[in-house]
């Protein structure tokens, strides 16, 4: 599944770059994240709950690793989520463009999905994926102010 989009932060590029590496802010970027900790080796681990409307669809164990860091322009997130409804694995390439007081984030996420969430969840994935990423980023934007 491919998610390609953009988001305009009302914060400087440096601020966004730094912010996206803090566990609190990263957790906000992925709505439903109940817990996200930065481990000693630089990886993040936590738990995420995916809901669709009032129904809790799945609980996932999440791990995130940031690689190819080019301050303050770009980095790649290697994401892994595993739960009883399946798994999500992939990478999100993130590019930050300087817009003065603002920063344009261009992201491209390529996710492999497996298990039940893949075999019966297709119609949810597209819309949920997009909604989640937009919602999350709005929340991050607030936090960065």
């Amino acid at each position, binding site marked *: 599944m491919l998610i390609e989009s953009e988001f305009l932060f009302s914060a400087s590029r440096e601020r966004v770059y730094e912010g996206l590496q803090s566990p609190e802010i990263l957790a906000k970027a992925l709505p439903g994240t109940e817990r996200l900790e930065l481990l000693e080796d630089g990886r993040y681990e936590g738990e995420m709950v995916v809901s669709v409307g009032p129904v809790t669809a799945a609980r996932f164990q999440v791990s995130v690793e940031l690689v190819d860091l080019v301050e303050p322009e770009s980095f790649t997130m290697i994401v892994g989520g595993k739960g*009883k409804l*399946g*798994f999500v*694995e992939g990478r999100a390439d993130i590019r930050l463009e300087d817009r003065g007081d603002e920063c344009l984030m261009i992201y491209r996420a390529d996710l*492999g*999905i*497996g*298990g*039940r969430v*893949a*075999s*019966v969840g*297709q*119609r949810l994935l597209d819309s949920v994926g997009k909604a989640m990423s937009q919602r999350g980023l709005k929340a991050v934007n607030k936090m960065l102010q």
Partner: protein
Amino acid sequence: MTTTGTIGSLIGESAPRNEDHRLLTGDALFVDDVHLDGMLHVAFVRSDYAHGYLRHVDLSEARAHLGVIAVYAADDLGDYWAPGPLLVPPPPIERCEFRSATQVPLAKDKVRHVGEAIVMIVAESRYVAEDAAALVEVHIDPLPPVATTEGALADGAARIHEQFDSNEAAHVVQEKGDYEAAAAGAAHRIRRRFKMDRGASAPMENRGIVANWDEQGGELTVWDTTQAPIPIRNGLARMLGLPERQVRVIAPFIGGGFGPKIMMFYPEEVLLPWAAMQLKRPVKWIEDRQESFFATTQEREQIHDAELAVDAEGRILGVSDSFLCDTGAYNPYGLTIPINSQCTLLGPYAVPNYWSEFRLVFTNKPTVTPVRGAGRQHGVFVMERLLDLAASELGIDRAEIRRRNYLPPDAFPHDHEILYQDFAPLVYDSGNYEPALDKALEMIGWDQFKSELRPAYEAEGRSVGIGIVSYVEGTGVGPYEGARVTIQTDGRVCVTTGVGTQGQGHFTSFAQLVAGPLGVTAADVDVITGDTAKFNWGTGTFASRGAVVAGNACHAAALAVREKVLMTAAAALGADHEELEIADGSVHVRDAPDRAISLGDLASLANPLRGAVKPGTEPGLEATAYFGPEHGTTASGVHAMVLEVDRETATLNILRYVVVHDCGTVINPMIVEGQIHGGVAHGIGNSFYEQLVFDEGAQLMNASFMDYLLPTATDVPHIETAHVTTPSPLNPLGIKGVGEAGAIPVAALFAQALEDALGSDVGEILEMPLSPNLLFKLLHGD
């Protein structure tokens, strides 16, 4: 065997079905209806990954869950864990390389397709078992999956079975004559690539097993939605170390089979009986629909590069075909499907030169075994499409090019010099193809369509096309079946046979075959099938063989009982054999109707409490007979269709659908037509609505009826049927099989009719299935 008098026959009667009452009132027993005291319920934890090393499973939380009785992974099975048997070894084909890798009860070391079973949970209810399944932790190190047929043999493809040096499961070449020499001088050579994709059998009833171990009596009873109870019984006995007589397998009413229910031995079939013996409690597993998309076998993915060489009149000089066939993660069914494709491609035509080569490949998708048609549709698709392309190039009418190439009626038996799936040479026993073509042309109004209807439709701006296709189908293969016929003391007749039944009407068609010679009606005959305790020699229902093989055995047994009836009656009535007639449930002396005795009374007489049974005879009015044909018999048919396409929405409307079918002697026309209707519907599904969609991770994306589209009542047209009959010389009744026929040529017909309706706007249709989406893209671009 001598027979006297006129032997009655109910062959050809559309007798209403004996089995209907129970089915209509909800009184028929299906496997999930089996309820035993203390029964436990099973759920499986299945792989989310298509390919990977299974490192570790953590069962502790699941085991501790309230209501869970036991949790098993591969190591818990000890010595019982073993890969399943190879069901169909390769036929004795000269150029054949074959590697076998069969499915395992629970994954050990590796997982090879999404949905492969890893852990079995036994609990007080299915709900609790699934709760516990969520608590099992499975650690898999993923490997790159082989997600496509072509990808299986690509450089660097991950090896699915590491004991082999590639993912090639088999490489087979069969040939006849010399294609290259024949094609060298050909007026036209047409070469194309054809692709067909996966579909599910999707019977309305999912699979299920109930196993009960009676410790005191030492008997294992298994209810199983199988098409082959006897081989399952034999295999389970062997695996569990029990004598065959202590294992009983019952296939009760089955809600549709269509092929995958004859796959043996599914992991669940192997595990449930074992668990019942371990736990000393009955256990039940019922597959749910989502599970079925992974846990039940599938079929139909092949890629053909084929070439047809014809002369200037469109006569076939030869065919060359090189194809890839996907067997999924394991290949328990050997080469059955690709050989069916290989052989069925020849069709009803004279093909003097043939080169056919295939590679069977493993992929990380669910295992492939035959689904209604079992590879025949691929051969038909390739040949019929090539003929259509040749017809177009040469400017010959599409019906005419077929007619020119038909084997003439005096060409039988016709030996094609290659081997068929039943290990015998591909010999067509009988057939007469032109009359079927003529009848179909007449019924569909072929000439009238071209001259009048098409111009009229075009004037209205409607896109309407017509198509006609022709095919043969090898049916009725051996090895054998048996039947035992008994006249009861109440006058009712009972026939017991080993084949299972999944809706084909055996309770009625077999009754007809037995009732005729015994002078009773079909409703007077009780048919018992699918219970190894009642009859335990035979194989099963598959490859359109039930009526041919089991039917002939039933008839033979009835004839043997008829002899006994006459002998017993002759003694009882003090008359001669030749003077006796059997009718209306009793035997009477011809022209002296008051000298009569009922069959029931005769049955009592034949089993005396005093007196003696003469040496060399048997008590009762009962006989068992077996029938094993030398090789399969060749059914054939022609399908024609008028199809309208809405160019704006890419939706279809089938205006006419005609089937002219030759299945030899027809026992019950109503049942035969029903089988054809169902087959055509299945074929329509495979042509336009049904497709199992896998992504690059070999993950199935549409494992539900929301997204895997079965044709509904608004998608299947009214089907007009007619029959041509060339009785088979290979069995006494002249019967040929018909169960799969409806499904076989439909894709080829769809492609032809769509091209006819849309012309150059859609180009050449060389892939199946299409779909509303794909057709829309073809018409409107992306």
